[in-house]
């Protein structure tokens, strides 16, 4: 796949931002490595879709948002949830199905939510979040706030009607929504080539006159810069944008994926362009950080991740009567 040439010079950003971005990416990487371990220990149930390899997309894009902007995404959302500000404790406890989880143990890995932080899920039907995000953007425009909505989805969701219906409405009604397609080249075990007749996702937006950009999804600053341009368009002109982030996932589709649809060599090739590795190198080359800074980040991250596991372990299971709560906001019960 082509690597888009739209990288941003490192030195345009201040050090604090750059270190924070690196810190988040490392935190997400280590957090998910821990998830894989906990999953294999049986602490995490159900499905567990890991983000490892794609960290630059979520971290870079979300770094371009204001705190009150919204994020909606798919079921591969641990990284974006943390990037939006959710604590690793609440996320890990949710994966553990505990009362201390962000969704009180009722959502699990695929349904992380934090309304306060503007993280609106965690949706597990491929493409289902795209009309929802369009509606959130609609509401922001309706209420005349200047909030922006970011919607992540994989390239396989582009084949769903929901994607096309949403882009059409967003441009028709001029909605401040940024659609970020994380093109990791596989929809579960089916490669892009086997699933999409015309594989340039960014160009598809032309059918709806939505502005689009293809971005190197392994370059966190490129993601950040492209998203900043889209945010400006959304906030100032109330217009949607489609970003195609070209990226790669190192792990299987989920923890139960044997991965025999691709070669070890292919994975290793992409790992050479690991987003954390290249960003660290960039920062070192530019003299922004030194080896000691990375070690300090790793130590801090290790502590945070260990703490999240301890929190999840110690958090109680949901109370039995939680089974019947949260079904309705206005329960009507004349019959029990």
């Amino acid at each position, binding site marked *: 796949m082509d690597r888009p040439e739209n990288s941003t010079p490192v030195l345009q950003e201040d050090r604090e931002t750059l270190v924070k971005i690196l810190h988040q990416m490392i935190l997400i990487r280590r957090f998910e490595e821990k998830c894989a371990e906990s999953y294999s220990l049986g602490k995490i149930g159900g499905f567990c879709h890991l983000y490892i390899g794609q960290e630059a997309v979520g971290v870079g894009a979300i770094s371009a948002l204001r705190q009150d902007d919204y994020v909606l995404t798919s079921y591969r959302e641990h990284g974006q949830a943390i990037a939006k500000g959710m604590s690793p404790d609440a996320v890990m406890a949710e994966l553990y199905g505990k009362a201390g989880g962000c969704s009180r143990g009722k*959502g699990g890995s695929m349904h992380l939510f934090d309304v306060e932080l503007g993280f609106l899920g965690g949706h597990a039907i491929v493409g*289902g979040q795209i009309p929802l995000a369009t509606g959130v953007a609609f509401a922001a425009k309706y209420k005349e706030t200047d909030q922006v909505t970011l919607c992540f989805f994989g390239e396989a969701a582009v084949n769903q009607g*929901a994607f096309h219906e949403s882009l059409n409405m967003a441009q028709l009604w001029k909605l401040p929504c940024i659609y970020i397609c994380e093109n990791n080249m596989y929809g579960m075990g089916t490669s892009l080539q086997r699933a999409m007749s015309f594989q340039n996702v960014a160009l598809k937006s032309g059918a709806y006159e939505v502005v689009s950009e293809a971005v190197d999804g392994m370059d966190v600053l490129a993601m950040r810069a492209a998203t900043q341009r889209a945010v400006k368009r959304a906030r100032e002109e109330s217009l949607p944008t489609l970003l195609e982030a070209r990226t790669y996932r190192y792990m299987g589709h989920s923890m139960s994926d044997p991965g025999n649809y691709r070669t070890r060599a292919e994975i290793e090739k992409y790992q050479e362009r690991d987003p954390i590795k290249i960003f660290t190198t960039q920062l070192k080359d530019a003299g922004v950080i030194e080896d000691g800074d990375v070690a300090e980040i790793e130590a801090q991250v290790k502590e945070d991740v260990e703490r999240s596991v301890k929190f999840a372990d110690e958090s109680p299971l949901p109370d039995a009567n939680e089974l019947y709560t949260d*079904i309705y906001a206005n329960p009507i019960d004349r019959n029990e």
Partner: protein
Amino acid sequence: MAVLTMRDALNQALKEELARDNSVFLMGEEVAEYQGAYKVTRGLLEEFGPKRVIDTPITELGFAGLGVGAAMVGLRPIIEFMTFNFSILATDQIINSAAKMRYMSGGQFKIPIVFRGPNGSAYQVSSQHSQALESWYAYFPGLKVVMPSTPADAKGLLKSAIRDDDPVIFLEQERMYGMKGEVPDDEDFTIPLGVADVKREGTDATIIARSVMVPTALQAAEQLEKEGISCEVIDPRTIRPLDINTIVESVKKTNRAVVCEESHPFASVGAEISAEITERAFDYLDAPVKRLSGADVPMPYAKNLEQMAIPDVAAVVAAVKEVSYL
């Protein structure tokens, strides 16, 4: 009280609620400039403008999902399906998103959205346009399902549905849009969701009917009265949550129950009501609960076949006689 058609009663409810709360907006195919495919939304664009009364492309999944997203962050959308047959395209968003958002987020969201439009048969519109889908939606916890049978109920229930903080499937009936009845003009007139209404009192048999089957049941009851059989007609009005107590209390009194519906029989709301009666009032039954459903076939086009596919007054009369051993 004014005498209004059901169409105008619904229009009044929409108008009053749009005026009452700025977070309410109405969206759907042909709701604005065309004035509504069935004229339920007549005059609303003029009064509330294009920001609040919005014509959509024919993109049911898209605008249903858009509505749910807007509800997640505080708006109160009213999504019109031109008919509920088209809602089938939108079921992913209704079922996977609207019904479950609150639960799977651990109670972080209210989803105050109304999906409304005509449900069930119309006049010779054939298989794809004549479906009664209440049992689909009533199946899912997280949704509320409402089916009015009179203009007053339509107005009072729609206003309650719009004010409710949960997703409500509001099922109208095209055959009933022209039906007239007295409707309170009071802007605060509402009918609570989840409360059944005894449309006619009686002692010998209970007929449970909803939507377009209510007038049919009432006509049957009138005919049976002449033959000395006194029927109680109960309209649950809200299918989920179902006011089963009112139904069961009536059956305990009459000992006989006939459940009428225009939907298909298999796993229908009638099947559910029948099962509930059997569980809760078994010792009071004098006959097995009789279900009277639409034919278990796709709706045919031909007029005579279509008539045969929907329970009529004679069928209700016969069913009541059957459970009364007459």
